[in-house]
């Protein structure tokens, strides 16, 4: 896959949740087994649509996230395809044990981890979930997908229905520019090479993918040719893409809006260490809780800007040469 699937310029500002809602509305008609569950969480357009046309496939189970996830397990055991909706922090924070049970039984539940990651303006540390990747990827049998924009979010939600098993989908809260063309072919587990490059590879996921692309632009102005990869599936991770990047570009930077401990940084470091040792630097929340602030303020405070990424890139390229 190549940059041909990217829009020439990042498009309109759109929430990933909006893309997901568009998928649910299509799925409502396409698959009568799809049921949507909310833990008193905003239902947006899909909620309105189901309420009008399929009210009995819309269940608001109140502020009890762990319970919602186990109820979804029961629904899946009865042949339904439930999508649960709540804040990432409370799905995992209140429902880890319950998610683990679903995974053990390979139940066909789709857990939508809304408002994921560090870049959630205003809500503060209690709501900024940075441990999600590390905790969920340790659960055997669970698939974890982290789309980069509204188009990829929509494609993810459509694709997970075709896959029989538990999937968690982490979507960030802010409106972000749409980067993908509508005809981009999304495949669970297959990383997307957004930009070819030979000096290093930047692996990114979710809301940080655009920042990684912008960092690559900065680098190209300085004569550094960075490959950029969208690791939309964090589990199972595309290990081939990681090994290729290590072999072909010889240096790696990882970029995420969650804790680098066990996060995308951890994933890539594990594969690199076991296969092709190359200089690597991890950008992300470095074992530190969040706080309130604008997206730009948070990016600056937690070193998540394109400038931070470019700086790390130059560092790994320098280490590669020395």
């Amino acid at each position: 896959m190549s940059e041909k699937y990217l829009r020439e310029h990042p498009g309109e500002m759109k929430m990933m949740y909006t893309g997901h809602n568009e998928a649910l509305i299509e799925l409502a008609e396409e698959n009568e087994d799809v049921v949507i569950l909310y833990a008193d969480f905003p239902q947006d357009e899909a909620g309105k649509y189901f309420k009008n046309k399929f009210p009995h496939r819309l269940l608001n189970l109140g502020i009890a996230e762990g319970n919602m996830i186990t109820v979804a397990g029961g629904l899946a055991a009865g042949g339904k395809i439930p999508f649960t909706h709540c804040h990432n922090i409370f799905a995992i924070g209140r429902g880890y044990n319950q998610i683990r049970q679903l995974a053990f039984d390979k139940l066909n539940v789709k857990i939508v981890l809304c408002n994921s990651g560090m870049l959630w303006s205003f809500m503060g540390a209690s709501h900024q979930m940075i441990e999600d990747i590390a905790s969920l990827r340790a659960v055997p049998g669970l698939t974890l997908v982290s789309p980069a924009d509204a188009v990829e979010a929509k494609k993810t939600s459509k694709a997970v229905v075709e896959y029989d098993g538990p999937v968690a989908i982490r979507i960030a809260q802010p409106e972000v520019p749409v980067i993908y063309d509508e005809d981009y072919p999304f495949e669970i587990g297959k990383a997307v090479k957004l930009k070819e490059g030979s000096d290093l590879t930047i692996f990114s996921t979710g809301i940080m993918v655009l920042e990684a692309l912008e960092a690559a632009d900065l680098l190209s102005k300085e004569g550094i040719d960075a490959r950029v990869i969208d690791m939309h599936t964090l589990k199972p991770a595309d290990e081939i893409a990681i090994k290729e990047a290590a072999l072909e570009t010889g240096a790696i930077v990882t970029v995420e809006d969650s804790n680098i401990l066990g996060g995308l940084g951890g994933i890539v470091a594990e594969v690199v260490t076991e296969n092709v040792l190359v200089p690597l630097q991890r950008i992300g929340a470095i074992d530190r809780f969040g706080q309130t602030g604008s997206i730009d303020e948070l990016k600056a405070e937690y070193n998540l800007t394109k400038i931070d990424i470019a700086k790390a890139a130059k560092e790994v390229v320098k280490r590669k040469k020395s």
Partner: protein
Amino acid sequence: MPHDEKLIKDLEEKAKALRRHVINMINKAGMGWIGGSFSETEIITCLLFHHMKHDPKNPDWPERDRLILSKAHCCEMLYAALGEAGYFSKEHFNSYGKFGALLQAHSQTTTPGVEYSGGSLGTGLSFAVGEALVTKIDRYSGSLDSQKFNVYCILGDGECDEGQVWEAALVASHFELDNLTVIVDRNDYQSTGKVVDIMRLEPLMEKWRSFSWHVLDIDGHDMVQIMDALNEANKTRGKPTTIIAHTIKGKGVPSFEERRLHFTKITDDMYSEAMEVLR
């Protein structure tokens, strides 16, 4: 309503046979949850050998009634009943709790006939609520292949300490899940002592009632009372039912009852006594 005396007697004999299976299972495994298995014996016997619609030869039959054993540590009795009913060979009783065994230390769906993988207390009722909702969704959606079945969930009384039990109880009454019945195995003891000392549950009936459930209170070792309560639960419309079944930990073997055994080894003396009284 008059009861079929032969049926009652047969079920009581079946309960005895199941207790013998459990003694053998735990004896071979070296340890097990004998007390809670014996307190739930009549409940499981009545459900699987009389009340529930199910087919051991077709464990995935969509219209089967579901039994969710939320207190999944007391799986020995469920295994005894499922094996006796024909879900798997009774040979498997000999390897319960061993490496690679079909019958693991907590019941899980890898065993034919087991609907829910437990072990984490307090989650079974939520799962049962999900199963019960399936029939509601289908009924109201006018689905052509609408499934109709009842869901039964056995909770331990100690397990009612878990908050998720009450979260699930709220959902069940909110959605008027009248195809869902909870049976609380009210044996008054939990892992480290008496329920009343560890975390008082009374007034338990009022708690369930205040969650808008239909509530019944029975002797959980009396087959007739269990049968009547399950029938009443099925006839109750517009709300789920909980049956508080008063039971005795270790029921059926005097020295077990006296000691309210929870998790234990079986000594030679215990084995001989049990096999003598359960003949």
